């Protein structure tokens, strides 16, 4: 029996197919197909989420492949976690598809863009609904593919094409870890079904080195997809894609897939404190590092990209310190306000035509809707109560504080401070002061501002279900009846609010009151400034080591192939020819020589003998007579 959740991913797939095959005729109408499809999925998702909230669940599968007589399933499963993701993906997805109608207006490959978006939605929903590790891997790669296509959407631009490739390859590195993780997990436990990954199963294999390795490898996948250190380098470059794509894929949904995976496998990671430790450390390092990079970026999308990396690091850290609901909560709130930030940035780019903040400034008058929605998002991400970001960030900080990892806690606090600072910096540089470039900005059309407004409400309100005001309804829902202990820690709350305000005040002082100060700071602390601006030279380091090494190996392998292996083959051939030449010589002068010598001798002898043959008949007669005489004399003995 097929239940309606099956259609949640299938509707966007149908939309993709329709646009691919009929896009030529549909043209502008392709957008409507995509919008309708995503809206339909959204409605179905909400219905499914509602059912799950009532305590229901969905599970449906069929056998896809047999591995050594163990069946691999393919199916859909909806539990609270995937219900949350479904809601986030379809809701934000629909808004962004609508937004794209305005943003991609007049693009020559308009229809194709919506085809990709539909394909992405299909893949992402498939990922969220996956019931096994193998299936999630399958869709994991598919979303990566969509990301590749969409980053390189304007492929005529060399940088865009290269960014797409970089994203795909970097993700592949993580995915190989993920893949090996699946294989090892399969052989360690005999299952890849999420439904089987329960604490009991993991405890049965407690202390297993293979399972530890497996957990680490699985985390590699998340590191790649969620752009965690050291595989974070692809995400800033991914900003080459159209802005709605950055919002949907590289901020709200796809990059969160890594977090989703870790949350999905939480029982596994939780059972191995060492692995959790690694996750927490990587998350914290990423959060801190990316926030540091974001401080000095001048490209509006790059700031947001590093901010995304930083926030993803936050979530990872939360999961690492045991805050499964905290991380997921932040995932959801972040999806809203970061999507809003990107769409707002898109609106700014669309309205002003530039992406560099050096050219902007004072846009709040010409783009009021964009400005006010952007303010909402900034306040949300900076963690000002009661906006969404405050609740989720606060919960993460509480988790970190309670876990006892003091360094992680303070690092996250520092990150929060920097986050608040760079976000307000962005806001002030873009919307306040005077316009620095020669721009003719205008407000974006309604089709773009409407999603902004909706998301602004979302950013303001989406945190409430997880707040103490609603008795942590969200966390209880997610934990499905096993609520985690959620304490309110007044110390942490104070610190959290203080950092947010401090960030705001610093930014205000530096970029509104005394705009000449930043340059002087940059000069004075040039080491820090350059390190941040150049992102610690990590890209250059990779270029010089891993990529350089890779290219060298490849080149040398080819040289080896041509100069050693193929040379050997050719040498064997040539040597055979040389040997044949010698044999030929022997044959010609010795073997054949002997034959010729025989003939020559016979000829020489017969040259003498032939003289007897005169051809004159009388000579013959004379010889005949002589012969007769000889016989006669011989007979008669004379």
């Amino acid at each position, binding site marked *: 029996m097929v239940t309606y959740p099956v259609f949640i991913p299938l509707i966007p797939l149908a939309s993709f197919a329709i646009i691919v095959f009929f896009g030529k005729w549909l043209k502008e109408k392709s957008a409507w197909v995509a919008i309708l499809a995503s809206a339909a999925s959204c409605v179905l998702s909400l219905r499914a989420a509602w059912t799950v909230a009532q305590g229901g669940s969905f599970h449906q599968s069929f056998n*896809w492949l047999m*591995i050594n007589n163990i069946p691999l399933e393919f199916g859909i499963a909806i539990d609270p976690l995937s219900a949350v993701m479904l809601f986030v993906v379809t809701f934000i997805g629909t808004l962004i598809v609508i937004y794209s109608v305005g943003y991609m207006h007049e693009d020559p490959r308009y229809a194709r863009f919506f085809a990709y978006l539909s394909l992405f939605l299909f893949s992402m929903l498939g990922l969220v609904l996956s019931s096994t590790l193998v299936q999630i891997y399958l869709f994991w790669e598919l979303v990566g593919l969509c990301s590749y296509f969409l980053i390189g959407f304007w492929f*005529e631009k060399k940088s865009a094409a*290269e960014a797409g490739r970089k994203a795909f*390859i970097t993700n592949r590195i993580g995915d*190989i870890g993920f893949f090996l993780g699946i294989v090892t997990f399969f052989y360690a436990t005999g299952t890849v079904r999420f439904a089987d990954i329960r604490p009991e199963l993991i405890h049965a294999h407690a202390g297993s080195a293979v399972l530890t390795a497996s957990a680490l490898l699985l985390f590699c996948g998340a590191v790649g997809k969620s752009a965690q250190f050291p595989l974070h380098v692809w995400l800033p470059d991914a900003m080459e894609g159209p802005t709605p794509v950055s919002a949907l894929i590289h901020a709200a949904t796809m990059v969160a897939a890594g977090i989703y995976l870790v949350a999905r496998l939480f029982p596994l990671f939780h059972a191995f404190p060492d692995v959790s430790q690694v996750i927490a450390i990587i998350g914290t390092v990423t959060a801190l590092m990316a926030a540091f990079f974001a401080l000095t970026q001048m490209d509006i999308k790059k700031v947001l990209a590093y901010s995304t990396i930083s926030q993803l690091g936050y979530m990872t850290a939360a999961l690492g310190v045991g805050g499964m609901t905290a991380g997921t909560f932040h995932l959801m709130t972040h999806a809203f306000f970061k999507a809003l930030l990107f769409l707002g940035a898109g609106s700014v780019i669309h309205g002003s035509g530039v992406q560099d903040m050096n050219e902007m400034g004072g846009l709040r008058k010409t783009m009021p809707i964009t400005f006010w929605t952007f303010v909402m998002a900034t306040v949300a991400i900076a963690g000002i109560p009661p906006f969404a970001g405050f609740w989720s960030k606060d919960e993460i900080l509480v988790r970190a504080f309670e876990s006892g990892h003091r360094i992680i806690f303070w690092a996250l606090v520092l990150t929060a401070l920097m986050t608040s600072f760079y976000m307000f910096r962005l806001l002030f540089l873009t919307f306040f002061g005077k316009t620095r470039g020669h721009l003719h900005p205008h407000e974006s059309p309604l089709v773009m501002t409407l999603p902004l407004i909706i998301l602004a409400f979302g950013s303001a309100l989406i945190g409430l279900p997880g707040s103490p005001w609603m008795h942590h309804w969200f966390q209880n829902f997610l934990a499905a009846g096993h609520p985690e202990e959620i304490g309110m820690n007044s110390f942490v709350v104070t610190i959290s609010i203080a950092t947010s305000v401090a960030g705001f005040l610093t930014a205000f002082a530096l970029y509104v009151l005394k705009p000449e100060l930043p340059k002087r700071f940059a000069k004075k602390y040039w080491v820090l400034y350059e390190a941040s601006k150049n992102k610690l030279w990590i890209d250059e380091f990779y270029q010089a080591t891993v990529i350089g090494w890779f290219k060298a*190996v490849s*080149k040398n*392998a080819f040289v080896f192939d041509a100069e050693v292996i193929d040379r050997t083959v050719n040498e064997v051939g040539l040597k055979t020819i040389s040997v044949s030449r010698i044999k030929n010589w022997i044959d010609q002068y010795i073997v054949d020589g002997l034959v010729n010598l025989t003939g020559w001798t016979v000829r020489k002898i017969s040259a003498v003998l032939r003289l007897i043959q005169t051809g004159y008949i009388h000579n013959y007669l004379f010889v005949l007579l002589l012969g007769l005489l000889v016989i006669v004399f011989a007979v008669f003995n004379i």
Partner: protein
Amino acid sequence: MHLPILSCLVFLPLVGMILIMLVPRGRDNLIRGIATIATALVLGLTIKLLAAFDQTQSGMQFVEHAQWIRELNVFYHLGVDGISILMIFATALLGFLACVASFGITERTKEYFALYLLLETGMMGTFLSLDLFLFYIFWEVVLVPMYFLIGVWGGPRKEYAAIKFFLYTLAGSMFMLIGILALYFNHTPHTFDMIELTKNSFALYFQQLVFLALFFGFAIKVPIFPFHTWLPDAHVEAPTPISVLLAGVLLKMGTYGFFRISYPILPQAAHWFGPYMGVLAVIGIVYGGFVAFAQKDFKKMVAYSSVSHMGFVLLGLAVFTPAAMNGALLQMFNHAMITGGLFLLVGVLYDRAHTREMDAFGGVWSKMPVYGSILIFISLASLGLPGLSGFVSEFMVLMGSYPVYRWMTIASCIGILLAAAYLLYMIQRVLLGPLNPKWSRLPDINKREIFTLVPLMIFILAVGVYPKIALQYIGPSIEHLLHLLAGKIAA
């Protein structure tokens, strides 16, 4: 009526060849028509065969058995089972599609299609024979037309490539012949029958020697590192349709030989050589990937990618688990579809631009949108994107090989990464980036060319989404083979 379907498969192309030889020179359309009809009939018969094939049975089906040379105990013995059925289908399909793709050949058309059909007879015969003598004959029958097809209709260095291919493969088949004769004389009563030979158990050292001899013959054909260098040369010089058959079918004859001859007849030796084959496989996977990345010539890159991908077949053979064996056999089929498609695509581009230098292109996608999309689709299949067929077989092989050779499996994963690297690099250089103004008048792929590619894409997608459609044919036979192997190895 009882139709000897397998004989028809083998000899229909030969009939076509004779008909073509009767047609006067110059009537190109008639010649093409005959060749297309002959290959289409073979394809039709193969589909009929697939429909009539009993998927639950592990043994030989549609067997044809007749005495041929009584004194030597040689039989005309044909049959099909799960191991060969997919290769038969791949041969028929690619044979037909490459024939359609051959319409571009305008020079010496009569000879071309005559040789082409002879080649198809040889390929079909190789996959269908159950008698080593017959197998060897068909194996050699493949060589001769291939030599001429490369040597006459090839590129600038065609003579070199053709002779290299011919001599290299011939050297391999010499060893193979020795192996076959050794089997023949060491079995009482003397027989060439493959099924009969599986029942005997030879001593281990004898098995090893024969295995090694056969290995050379098969390894050169696959080609397994370090016997692979004929492949890039032959591919680069061969005309497009011939490259398709070379990559799609001829390479598989080597791995098929392992499945059909080496493994069932010499199980202990196969087990003994397993680790070494695994090592060669991993070297091939990684090394082929690295070398492919360094290529500037499109076709050469695809050729080296074949070395890498065929490594997975060998890796699957090296371990004796059902997943890996099924995966290896499936990989043979998938690689035929994917690489066949890639070579067709290279040909499409070459026909228009007359160069294969990847750096010479750039931004072609905006000029050839359909072509670009198809190229990306098939490249994605080749780099193992889930949902397309390449992933399934590589996944199965790796899944199957992990419990046996853990580190080799991990090393092979680098090959997957490399595939992404070189294929995306290719896509970037050819399709993406700013349009090279030189190609601003490039026409998009035409209907005939699309026709040759669509069936391949359908199979790539279908097997990728639902692998059972292919696996259901091979499962029982592989199980049977593994059962046989397990019994022999344990003994």
